[in-house]
């Protein structure tokens, strides 16, 4: 969970699901599917933002989890 690759994989998985959903319109507008895909994309996006913007400053976002 503390690896950015895990979150990157989640983001890619979310985007792939979005693409699959977009192929069949009914799936994309299914509430459960939409909520799950949205959470996957948004959650992984914000975690990556947190990680990389801290990393850019030479800081460890996962400091507490690693110690």
């Amino acid at each position: 969970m503390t690896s950015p690759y895990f979150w990157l994989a989640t983001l890619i998985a979310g985007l792939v699901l979005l693409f699959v959903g977009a192929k069949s319109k009914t799936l994309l507008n299914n509430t459960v599917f939409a909520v799950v895909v949205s959470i996957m994309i948004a959650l992984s996006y914000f975690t990556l933002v947190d990680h990389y913007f801290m990393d850019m400053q030479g800081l460890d976002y996962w400091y507490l989890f690693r110690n």
Partner: protein
Amino acid sequence: MGSVTRKKILSIMALGAMVGLLLVPILTSLPALAGGGGPAAGGPPPEVAAAKKDGDKKEEAKVEKGRDVYYKTEGIVSGAPAPITTDGEKDYPRYNFESRVLIWFANQQHLYYGSFVLAVPIFCMIIEFMGVVAKDKALGKKYDQLAYDFVKISLTAYSLTAILGGILIFTFLTLYPAFFGYLSGIFRPVMHIYALMFVAESGTLYIYYYGWDKMKTGFLKWIHLSMSVVLNVIGTVLMFLANSWIAFMMSPAGVDEQGRFLGNIWHVIHTALWNPLNVHRILGNMAFGGGVVAAYAAYRFLSSKTDEDRAHYDWMGYIAMAIGVAFLIPLPFAGYWLMREVYAYRQQMGITLMGGLLAWLFIIQATMIGILFLSTNYYLWQALGRMRGAEKYFRYIKYLVFILFCGFLIFITPHTMVMTPAELKAMGGQQHPVLGNYGVMSAKNGGINVIITTTVLSFVWYMRGNKVSTVSWAKFGNIFMGVFFGLAYINIVWLAIYGYYIPANVRVGLSVPQVATTLSCLFYMFALNSVMMKGAKQLGPIEWGKISARSQYALIMLATAFTWMMGLMGYIRSSVRLFWHVNEIMRDNSPWAYTHTVGFAANMISANVLFFWISILFVFWVGSLTKKAAPVEAKVPVPGGAPQPVAGH
């Protein structure tokens, strides 16, 4: 050759000549700039001049070198040291009054008007461009009329700005001659370019304004529009040059420790705080200009006698507010960058600002920022009332109020309180056992980001108020938007809480992902909303003019808060130098080299704000005397007589 073609060619030639003339002073200054502008501040010492004349090696050895206080490079001493002043008539001539208050007043008024006349032409450029590219011709003409109205307001203010600039220079010359002599010696070439740019700005502005009628169609309109670009480039350069003076006073560079100019004018201009100040000021000016124009529109709305006028000024107020707030949203981030650079330049200066002598002024500043965002949100919620179909959002507004106030209260919580010994004993220390936890930057960053994200959400609601998306993936879009905003709030609050559990050197970095989260909401959600609302079904028209009077008072509040905050921040930035004219280079030995009490500063800022608003009302009144409205066609009545300047936002 037809007359139209001839006119076009003449216009292009005129524009080319104008640009050429504008470049002449810069091109002629380049050799001087490259060489550092020659000797400054009274010329080089006699021995240096003699050495140059003779070319004698022995004499050349006498050329004195100094080390730059900031860049740490070596340079030939080309100016006199900063004067060591004494309290007396020679260095500080005075009336029976505090000279600092006079210079404060003159500076602040010049700054208010300067900001206004630099910001409004940028509005004109944006709105005129919107008018030119608008597919709907009627709408395009309305934008054109609006841009013309804006420039008309700024024209009278422009003259007043120049007058106030003159008053400011005379005040400096008569009350602070030693300091001004030193500063103008260092910045001699810059000041000349500034003056020439001011002439160019005036000329371009007058041609831009008076040429509106003559250049209203076709290719000539594009020439006119490109003139506004030239105008704004000059205006921005002017501001950057003026910023270099105050940046030099705070964080000098290009001089040695005695304040002697070392021959590189770029080092003097490009100091540690110059760029953060430039960004902060340009955003601040735009937000301030938007606020003033919105207040003008609100005043005209409230005094309108007809529905048509009310509709026009309601629309004008909305556009000005929207542009102003668009620049207000990134403003706290620019301020944060400036503060970071201040800390990086001199940690003590940062501590004086935010943790020491001036910290309470920052609490007032936080309160003003909160008021700005609360007023903006209130206006947007009121504006939902003029849209049919927007009622669906009304029941959620109370939740936004709750979120906003939570963010606001945390944002304004002070770290420590000024207390009597008895109060200190009763509370058990300088910090309140519960509320004290909210007085740290970790919590405050969370507070302000929550406020800004909520403002973005209010804007998104406003933009989709009377519309229903017709895209096939509308349901997914709405869910995604809701989840994205929800997780953004969670991320901001999470980072704020996380900051309590990690060391200070790691915590300080958390503000960057917090800002990135807020900006992600701003850019991605605006973009997503725009795509979703393309070709959307309209539930009803926007009934311009049918908005509560309270909303207009919110606009006036917004403008007043902007003005007050500008005065406050100017005072904070200036007084952080404490007893220095030029930080660590030239000491202020006048009897007023002390920091005023918070109460005195607040009264002084209020007096400045009051004077500005009384004088700008005069400017508005003068502007209303000229009944000439250039784009005559723009005055065509709105189809159907409905008081509705535009169909969209």
